[in-house]
């Protein structure tokens, strides 16, 4: 292969090695590092003049660092007269576009619990280190998650008295450091919890909190840096492609997943393909159709009871998620009080559409991050009489204590691709419970075809 240069970002060197093996070339020389003040430093070791450059960087690990590294690397190639620079992002960071400031668990945004803040204040007060999520979970907080999940799952949260609500909120607070709930950094002097309370209370009623949608920005930044083309896989939103004004090749993991199901799940012929949420229904049903398997869907209703009633000013703020009961109560009269209290507790109902009794279930999803969705789905399937639950996932990000949750979940076996490094997953869950599907051949073939100007649509249907 002439004139091709492949650079490996620091996020996922093993995948790059595999891709290069498939292309029978070597990754090119580049020194990646940081200056002592934290700025990313890049030193390209060979000429890229008039070359076709591919920069491979996955959106995992320390996302912002890796993304900046990618941008700087692309920019460096561009300013060094590369002919074309393609960003290869197996997992595309910021591809999920949350429009409401709450989490997979349905809990509203909540500040960092105070006691853990005290615990941590010894280290630093900077934001990065406030993240407690990547630390091993203590027994106690794990328990509190279970309680929180049970609280959410049990649908008896409609008429709760004040102390009960406070308690459940406390639960959510405690578990907040372990879920995809954004962590509000501690600031010196000011109490962050208060600030958070002020931010999300109902004083500015009528204003819906504006949650930044980073998608367009990320796309524009890549273009700004000088990327001419993007290769990625199983974008969470297919619409994301439209944010770019450059070519985007969204590869599909579907052929690989189908092959995996056919070859590695012995009882697949009697299995049911299950989508853990309605968002992934389309993707999962395609696999089910291709394999001729029945399909079931888990539908998650995440809404507060009061939304069924007439629109309420207090609900308009915070995207309909009153955070703390306190400000709500303060501007509601007594008769409305009970009503609104029930609203402040999130009602989440999960229901299964389809029959899974005495069947093997294969959960399909594109992304496992906090793993709340998939573990809860697995539990539901087992409760509904499923004999065995497999989970097949494209991107296994497993942030926070997701691995812990998966380990304790009803999932019998989970298969993830290596778009994100999975060494930790294997180490944590053991080889018997995890299968890693290798995507390097798809990416290798895509790069080869794009370099040679051939069509890549064949990759959408067939395993290479």
């Amino acid at each position, binding site marked *: 292969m002439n004139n091709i240069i492949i650079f490996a970002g620091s996020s996922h060197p093993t995948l790059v090695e595999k891709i290069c093996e498939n292309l029978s070339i070597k990754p090119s020389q580049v020194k990646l590092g940081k200056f002592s003040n934290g700025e990313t430093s890049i030193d390209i070791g060979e000429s890229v003049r008039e070359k076709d450059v591919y920069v491979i960087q996955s959106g995992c690990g320390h996302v912002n660092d890796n993304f900046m590294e990618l941008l700087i690397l692309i920019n460096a190639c561009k*300013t060094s007269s590369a002919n074309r620079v393609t960003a290869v992002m197996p997992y595309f960071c910021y591809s999920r576009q949350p429009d409401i400031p709450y989490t997979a668990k349905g809990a509203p945004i909540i500040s960092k619990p105070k006691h853990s803040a005290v615990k941590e204040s010894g280290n630093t007060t900077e934001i990065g280190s406030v993240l407690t999520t990547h630390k091993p979970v203590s027994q106690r907080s794990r328990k509190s998650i279970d309680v929180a999940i049970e609280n959410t799952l049990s649908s008896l949260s409609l008429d709760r008295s004040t102390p009960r609500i406070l308690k459940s909120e406390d639960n959510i607070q405690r578990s907040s450091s372990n879920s995809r709930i954004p962590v509000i950094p501690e600031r010196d002097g000011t109490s962050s919890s208060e600030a958070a309370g002020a931010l999300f209370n109902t004083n500015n009623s009528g204003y819906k909190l*504006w949650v930044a949608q980073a998608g367009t920005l990320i796309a524009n930044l890549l273009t700004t840096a000088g990327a001419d083309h993007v290769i990625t896989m199983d974008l969470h939103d297919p619409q994301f492609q439209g944010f770019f004004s450059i070519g985007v090749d969204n590869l599909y993991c579907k052929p690989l997943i189908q092959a995996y199901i056919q070859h590695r799940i012995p009882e697949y012929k009697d299995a049911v393909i299950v989508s853990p949420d309605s968002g992934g229904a389309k993707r999962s049903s395609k696999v089910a159709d291709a394999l001729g398997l029945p399909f079931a869907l888990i539908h998650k209703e995440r809404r507060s009871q009061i939304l069924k009633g007439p629109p309420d000013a207090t609900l308009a703020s915070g995207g309909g998620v009153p955070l703390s009961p306190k400000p709500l109560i303060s501007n509601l009269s007594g008769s409305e009080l009970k009503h609104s209290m029930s609203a402040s507790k999130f009602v989440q109902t999960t229901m299964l559409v389809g029959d899974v009794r005495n069947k093997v279930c294969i959960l399909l999803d594109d992304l496992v991050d906090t793993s709340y969705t998939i573990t809860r789905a697995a539990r539901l399937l087992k409760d509904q009489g499923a004999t065995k639950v497999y989970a097949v996932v494209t991107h296994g990000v497993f942030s926070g204590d997701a691995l812990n949750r998966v380990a304790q979940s009803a999932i019998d076996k989970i298969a993830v691709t290596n778009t994100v490094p999975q060494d930790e997953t294997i180490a944590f869950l053991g080889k018997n419970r995890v299968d890693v599907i290798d995507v390097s051949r798809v990416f290798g073939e895509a790069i080869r075809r794009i370099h040679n100007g051939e069509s890549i649509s064949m990759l959408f249907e067939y395993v290479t």
Partner: protein
Amino acid sequence: MSSNSIKLLAGNSHPELAEKISRRLGVPLSKVGVYHYSNKETSVTIGESIRDEDVYIVQTGTGEQEINDFLMELLIMVHACRSASARKITAVIPNFPYARQDKKDKSRATITAKLVAKMLETAGCDHVITMDLHASQIQGFFHIPVDNLYAEPNILDYIRKNIGVENTMLVAPDAGSAKRTSTLSDKLNLNFALIHKERQKANEISRMVLVGDVTGKSCIIVDDMADTCGTLVKATDTLIANGAKEVIAIVTHGIFSGSAREKLKSGKFTKIVTTNTVPVNLDLDIYDQIDISAMLAEAIRRLHNGESVSYLFNHVVV
């Protein structure tokens, strides 16, 4: 048209400075939630309407671990404001990140400062306020107006009030800062000396040559930034070896990364002074800080009211 007012937003990099600017301006910090998800992506939530407002976002380049996080925070905040229909968005970046990667000094070197400039524009910035850019040419990387403020008036004021000009000399620790030092010495009517250093690798200095006589003088080293402090410490040693009475270091951006703190502790300084463009965590008795929040606040006020900013280049804001 509705009235438009200043909205002051702050990222997580330097809340203290933002607080000071806010107090100075009499404009409360707007409610913004800047968090990290557990997968380390940044999430920004704006808690109040900024439609048709004049938005100022304070975020500085700092943090050995988080500098990229802070930059992404800033970009996402700018983008969020842009998509939330702000009338004008100004990024207030007291210490411009990646300012030193501003030239292609060898083959395939990155001009990251230019990239950062382009990224800010892409995100939707209309204006940038910064301070003591490492190279003022960085302003040319932007297609939007950049106000590069100088800490010089504050530093002059500090020298006059706290050090005195008797038997004092200004020293430029490298050729790059000679110009800055010479304007300072003109204004103070002092002599100045220059240290020439031979650099082989970034952040490493091999040899230093002093130009000028410093025997028996109080020397003030003035520079725009102190990072690993290799230059500062070596310059100080050189000055002391050449008979200087004492050495005082005044820098605008006290980044102090890596082993800088230890170096400074064991260094032969009489005093170390920085501004608060970045949070400085230096636990030394000889450390002193110049507060430049008033200048930033005044720049914001003038910018908002469409007044000239150049007054600030020569005058201390009290």
